[in-house]
């Protein structure tokens, strides 16, 4: 690497350089995920370009259309942002447990049941309460249901030793079956013939758009959730204990940390975010709960969380980027005659390359803050 070119010994030789060192240390620490992440994305795009060339299409044209479809106009930016809102929340459902070392991939189930719970509680309340209290009740109901759903995964993990990846996945399938049963049966709006749905939310109860934009308030709520999660992990005792338990469960237990409560607490918070995503889909997009809730936001959220390396703040730009990528699917189909699955194929390629690049962390001396302290032996 280029360590020798930026040899800190040379900097140390000049008198004023010492004041740069803390900055350089900070930069070295922060630069590693950014540089490796960007290199991984470029590599992934290059690999996908080879594939696109092989089938006789132009990768440059494809990437240009992706940009146009995702961020090329005010309309497409708003579309991307709307898609990002549920992704932010489902990504948190993966990222928070991941800080404890748990791989939970069942956010889809919590989202779906959260949406159903919100719709179910809204039906009796819409006549009794004005919109705001109703929406709060819907949000609470969805968060409780989502929290219990994923919290159960954490509970089973800690108290029964059931693998959380598998159980969350099974619960996801069970959740979708439950949703179908409820929407087809007791909660069905008799007027919904072709697409069984719950009773539609009256228009005045729907979550509106952010002033000046065609993006619903869910985006703001989701971004606040990301910021709160960041504070929770980085700045509270609860978060510190969770990070410690994620690093080494044994050490955490010996220190007397309540690992079980941490796991259940974190998974429950994570699930409540995914549930909230379901409520937002119902109250801001669909207007009722139906099979459209299982649109795969839970699965794309997994990708977002891993790309963000489970950092809640990094989730924000990445969810918006992926929202844009997904938004461009239709345009790719129309303009280039490529299948709409192009986006999924590209996502898969990027996902693999980015996870592969995890192996490069800590391998380059430039990113080691100690090198810049001048204390290198």
């Amino acid at each position, binding site marked *: 690497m280029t360590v020798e070119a930026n040899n800190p010994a040379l900097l140390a030789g000049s008198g004023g350089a010492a004041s740069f060192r803390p900055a350089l240390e900070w930069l070295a620490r922060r630069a590693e995920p950014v540089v490796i992440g960007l290199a991984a994305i470029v590599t992934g795009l290059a690999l996908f370009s080879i594939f696109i060339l092989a089938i006789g299409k132009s990768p440059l044209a494809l990437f240009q259309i992706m940009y146009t479809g995702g961020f090329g106009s005010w309309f497409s930016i708003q579309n991307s942002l709307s898609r990002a809102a549920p992704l932010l929340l489902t990504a948190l459902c993966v990222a928070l447990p991941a800080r404890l070392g748990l791989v939970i991939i069942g956010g889809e189930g919590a989202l779906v049941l959260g949406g159903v719970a919100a719709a179910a509680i809204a039906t009796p309340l819409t006549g009794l309460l004005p919109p705001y209290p109703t929406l709060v009740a819907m949000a609470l109901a969805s968060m409780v249901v989502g929290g219990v759903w994923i919290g159960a995964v954490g509970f089973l993990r800690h108290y029964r*030793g059931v693998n959380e990846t598998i159980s969350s996945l099974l619960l996801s399938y069970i959740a979708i079956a439950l949703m179908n049963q409820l929407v087809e049966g007791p909660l069905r709006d008799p007027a919904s013939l072709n697409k069984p749905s719950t009773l539609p939310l009256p228009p005045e109860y729907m979550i509106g758009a952010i002033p000046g934009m065609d993006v619903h308030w869910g985006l703001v709520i989701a971004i606040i959730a990301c910021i709160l999660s960041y504070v929770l992990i980085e700045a509270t005792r609860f978060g510190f204990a969770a990070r410690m338990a994620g690093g080494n469960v044994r050490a955490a237990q010996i220190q007397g940390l309540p690992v079980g409560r941490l796991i259940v607490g974190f998974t429950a918070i994570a699930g409540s975010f995914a549930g909230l995503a379901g409520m937002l889909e119902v109250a801001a997009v669909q207007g009722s709960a139906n099979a459209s809730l299982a649109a795969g936001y839970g699965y794309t959220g997994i990708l977002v969380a891993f790309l963000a390396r489970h950092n809640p703040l990094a989730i924000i730009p990445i969810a918006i980027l992926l929202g844009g990528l997904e938004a461009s699917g239709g345009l790719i189909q129309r303009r280039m005659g490529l299948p709409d699955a192009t986006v999924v194929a590209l996502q898969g*390629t990027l*996902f693999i390359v980015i996870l592969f690049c995890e192996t490069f962390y800590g391998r380059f001396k430039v990113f080691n803050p100690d090198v810049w302290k001048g204390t290198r032996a």
Partner: protein
Amino acid sequence: MSETDIGLWGVPLAIIAGAIRVSTPFIFVSLGEAITERSGRINLGLEGTLVFGAMTAYAVAVLTGSPWLGVLAAMGAGAVFGLIHGFICRFPRVNDIAIGIAMMQFGLGFAFFLGKPFIQPSAPKLPSIPLGNWSSYPQVQAALNINVLFFVGFLLALFLYWAFRNTRPGLILRVVGDSTDAARAMGINPDRVRLLATALGGALAAVGGAYLSLYYPGSWNEGISSGQGLMAVALVIFARWNPINCFLAALLFGGTGALGPALQSVGVTQGYYLFYAAPYVLTLAILIATSSPHRALSGAPGELSLTK
């Protein structure tokens, strides 16, 4: 009532028929996953491999007119997917579960991408053996019209059970799965064994996919799989990494999966969607009942990240 109406007997018959028909993909994917997990690695990406295998088999069968060439091509594609997973996971700091999730997306994406032109044309089907010709009931005949791959899966389960215990490759596989250090001390290259085990697992998972597209339901579309590839991972745990148990567990899954449609056929329509969830509920219940926070699952390979 017509004379071919067999009344309530239709329910157990439909469950048995469903168990046989639905279980075949589970048999192949779970046997493949059992091989991979026995080597100490978990491939969560078999769902992607299965769907990509389904697409490859269908496309090749359409183009060549031979379903068996389709199965062969699917095996090749599945092995490549396994090799990618196995290659990436040998590097330090790479999480095999996360790579599996990525491989799933990769496989699904490319299967839908490349399979788009094959949704319309129809492919020749895999042959089945009519074992029910002795019966005059068409329902019995239909139920015992069993696909060749089911028998291949059964024999494969027996063979693997024997091979894990009695052959050199089987022993090497188990040593690598139980202790990387012991394997190294014996001069075995654990990464290479895991690479081959993952490739073999991928090839078998792809056969499961080929069954879906070339026999039952026998068409190619984006909703071809209902999570068989993912369920197989749970199924292998349930089967305690034992190939014969994998076969039996697959039958049980197929049977519970057929419960809803079977009851519906005799007029029980209450809770149809809940019956659809029966295999998942069953798996979860068994996992909860048999897991323990204090010890690894009995029969689990020691190096498996899943049970650590």
